[in-house]
């Protein structure tokens, strides 16, 4: 199981257009990252807040619902966040190649 997780993570990291992959825990401390620490911490902090807000929004509308995935498409790339109570999985991809 662990090996499979590692493998999948590695595959994701090596995909075309993926600029960075990060796994940060709930405090914002990176567990796995392919970017440098300061960028990771910055992304983690900002995305954590956004994820909280998004999650709050989804649950406000229907408390039995929950946020599973968040994608932010910007001009330059796409940020994909898989939130959880204990961690944040962030992948930044530049898909338009």
């Amino acid at each position, binding site marked *: *199981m*662990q090996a*499979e*997780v590692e493998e*999948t*993570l590695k*595959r*994701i990291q090596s*995909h*075309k*257009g*993926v600029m960075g992959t990060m*796994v940060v*825990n*709930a405090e914002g*401390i990176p*567990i*796995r990252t392919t970017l440098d620490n300061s960028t990771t911490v910055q992304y983690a902090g900002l995305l954590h807040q956004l994820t*909280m807000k998004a999650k*709050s929004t989804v*649950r*406000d*509308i229907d*408390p*039995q619902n929950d946020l*599973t*995935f968040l*994608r932010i498409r910007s*001009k330059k790339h*796409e940020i*994909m966040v*898989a939130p*959880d*109570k*204990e*961690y944040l*999985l962030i*992948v930044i*991809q530049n*898909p*338009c190649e």
Partner: protein
Amino acid sequence: MRMSTGPQPKKSISFISTIKGTQTKGYSGANQSRMALSKTLTIAPEIKAEKMSISTPRTVIQVIDAHGVDVTPRPLYHPDPHTGTAKPNKLLTSREGSFAAEFISSYSLYQNTLNPSMLGHFTRSVLGSSIVSKSSVSTTESIAEDLEEPSYKREKLTSFTDLRVVRATPGKIVTKEDLEKTIEIILTETETLRFFNLPTVMVSVESEEAMKVRRRNKNYETLCRNRLGNDLYAERMMQTINGAPKNKDVQCDKIVKEDKGIMSTAWDLHDSYIAMELSSLPAKQSILDSCGKANVPSKDREQRVPGSTTEKDSEASSLMDIENVILTKVRDDEVDHSETILKSDKFHQDLFFMERVLMENIFQPKLAAYRQLPILKEPEPEKPEDFQEGEKLEKTEEEGQKEEEEEIEISTGQSTIPANLERLWSFSCDLTKGLNVSSLAWNRTNPDLLAVGYGHFGFREQKRGLACCWSIKNPMWPERIYQSPYGVTAVDFSIGAPNLLAVGYHNGTIAIYNVQSNSNVPVLDSSESPQKHLGPVWQLQWIEQDRGTTGDDKREILVSISADGRISKWVIRKGLDCHDLMRLKRTTSSSSKKGGEKEKKGEALISRQAPGMCFAFHPKDTNIYLAGTEEGHIHKCSCSYNEQYLETYRGHKGPVYKIAWNPFCHDVFLSCSADWGVIIWQQENPKPFLSFYPTTYVVYDVAWSPKSAYIFAAANESRVEIWHLHISTLDPLIVHVANPGIKFTTVLFAKQTDCLLVGDSDGQVGVYELRNMPAALDSGRGDVIDILIGSKSKQPG
């Protein structure tokens, strides 16, 4: 007593004059009696005149003085007839002094007298020309004393019209008759409102009580005078006892104040309620955990408040820990925690989704084309993101609707581009590189799941084998990988239990995997079965057979054909049970049969069995099936007879690699063989109906298109051909040439979309889209064979 009005000098008590500006008026409250009336005061008419802007007193009673002058007192106060109960002789003098003209309301000049005969003593009790504001009316009514007489209300001797009559808006349209109608308007005065009653302490010198009052006053004065030196009155001082003041100080702990804010969100409450329902200490713990850093726990949960403080403490303590010099301890904790994160299932799932999302991003246009979602053909955009944006908007969801292909119909009308195969993407990864794709199969229930078997055909090239399950959503890595030392030669998904995948190997083993689980171990294996195949299993298929006689409605069996010449049926009952459906015997050559000659005795047969290469069950009647052998014969067999063939179709000169029934026309089937040929047969005719020899390469695979009865695809070593029988039987419609060195080994049509999957010898399964196909014919599908026969009847078989 006459009341004098007008500019005559007043005989009234002077106090009026002192109260010039204000309209305070004393007021006799004792209007009950005539005597009381006499106490009323008159008001300086001047004042009155100023205040009243409009006054049209319609007094019934008139006061005429001795000179015959009408000295009827004019009212100074006009109470609003619409407001409340009129209380006589109460009148609030408006201290505010708002003599706004608009508030002149009628007020009743009430008579304290009960009969008009008292006119002479008519006093006006309303002295204040004060204008009572409406608002004060209600409040002062409460002040009204109980001096009012009910009779007063009736006694509206004088009434003044309300100068500010609120006209009710007509509810109906006024007609001409209505206009000319004489309307009677009755105006009545309201009851008098009493707001204030300050009994006067002054008496007119002319009133009857004046004497009494004077006397009293005088007595009092004398009393006061006498007091001074009188013995009866002695001055005395008294001292009150003052309590001794005592000061007391108390000191208390500093009152700690705390501000707490919370954003009470709907989900927060929901969570709390759910947690309360679970209601046990572990639940409480979870509350503590769940009310995370961003939330301050709700105030209205008392039981949580202590919890929250402890959580805060723990937070504080954890912060302190971090600030602590002993960092290693913290690191360990976090490392442990992070490991658990990485190992958690949720993380795994998130990774899975993430990968799919990435794939979607990368392959987005291709996937959209596959699913036949309309792609906006934007004029080549400068920013490719726009293109993708447009497509993203078009694409609904992963499992989105797949439309019937009419899209192509629209385009072919106008376009002159010939039909072609456009390569969308290919399933391949490092694992599959270099392997030969031997079989393809769709999952019966999940149209996105594809099983691919990798294994070489020839005996000499045997390498390890692989069976993979690919998903359309992730073209870069298979979902399941089942490795084996033997080459895989056949795969098929079960119908009844779509999670079962049957894999046939080159060594004759059949394994059944459960694709729901991740494990690499097959659920069932035939390697120990005594009846396992001895040669490569060239084809596997799950068949649902009607077994009305045995009671089961439909039983699913796995049928396999292998090079040891047996067609076997496997049933899953505590393991794989095998029964032979047929043993393929070698048949003698057709020439000898026709000629009726005897068999050549000298022929030494290596085996009496003919290796079977492929089979195909009739789409309608699952008792009948066709089997192709290495000899080139196709035998029609029935499940009920396992000794004899029903019919033999001879036409091929080499091993028959694939047989396929036409999905629309159930009498026609297609076969391909190593003799470079593709032959179309009719069921009743043992001779070929149509044959195609397009190239000099072995044709490995053929398949009918699920959409049209005329289209089929054939894969030979060098190219993939799409034939459209209606258009031409001499040339294929589309030819797609392979890259040099690569052989196409398998073809499979995608069921609902317009795509074709082609497997090649390099381990790649390419997904091609059929574009610009000619429009489907209108003729009913049942007529296909007639058309086929009709047009080709002249052609020799």
